């Protein structure tokens, strides 16, 4: 029942220091609108133009990635989406995983997944070989010229 001990108010203190949660919040707000543009365009190009989903195949991807614009586009989208998603999931884990141990495990899994996906995705985008493989019908037309 006794009153709590309060820390003495130290007036004036330095500005706030531990800003992790703040930056996480700001990041969500910056990455969100960017992602909106990136993803909606991505979806539109892939699903709404031309033959929609049916046009998507190896050749389509290779065709897109022949342009550095799309390479950069997809790369930025990948990284931002993963970081945004990572951060969002981290908040969720903080809310729902009450036991410290569980929380550690989930955070670790989340971190690993995020790193793996970003690295993997980046590798795929930057080391993509449009003329991979042997079946000429599957690769884009320009591979024939190269050959």
């Amino acid at each position, binding site marked *: 029942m006794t009153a709590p001990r309060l820390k003495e108010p130290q007036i004036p203190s330095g500005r706030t220091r531990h800003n992790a949660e703040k930056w996480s919040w700001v990041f969500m707000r910056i990455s969100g609108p960017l992602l909106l543009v990136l993803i909606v365009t991505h979806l539109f190009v892939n*699903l709404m133009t031309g033959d929609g989903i049916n046009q998507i195949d190896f050749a389509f991807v290779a065709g897109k990635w022949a342009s550095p614009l799309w390479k950069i586009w997809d790369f930025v989208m990948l990284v931002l989406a993963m970081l945004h998603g990572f951060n969002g999931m981290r908040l*969720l884990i903080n809310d729902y995983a009450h036991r410290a141990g569980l929380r550690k495990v989930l955070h670790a899994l989340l971190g690993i997944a995020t790193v793996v996906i970003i690295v993997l995705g980046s590798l795929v985008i930057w080391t993509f070989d449009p003329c991979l493989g042997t079946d000429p019908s*599957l690769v884009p037309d320009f591979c024939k010229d190269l050959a």
Partner: protein
Amino acid sequence: MWMWVVHRVTGVAIFFFLLIHVLDTALVRVSPEAYNDVIGSYKTPIYGLIESGLVAAILLHAFNGLRIIAVDRSTWALRHQKQLVWAVWILFAVLMAPFLWRHLGHVFGGA
């Protein structure tokens, strides 16, 4: 409150989809055959529906995200947040309709 639930659920859904999506796209590094196989299965009606759900989730999450940002930045938006929730749903409906028409047309019409 319910928009908060929606935002959370859609956020998680998109996240898991993104994991899978990157993995499948990574197959382009393995071989064109493997990639086309997997992508091929996306073109079946079942996946067509799932894909639609995904787009729905992204759109909802995205517009609601904009609403949240607006509410944090402007007093007007804050005081009209309920109307903005309606706006999110209307915008969502307006964009989903043509998309569904076209996408499901592709999926089921086999064009």
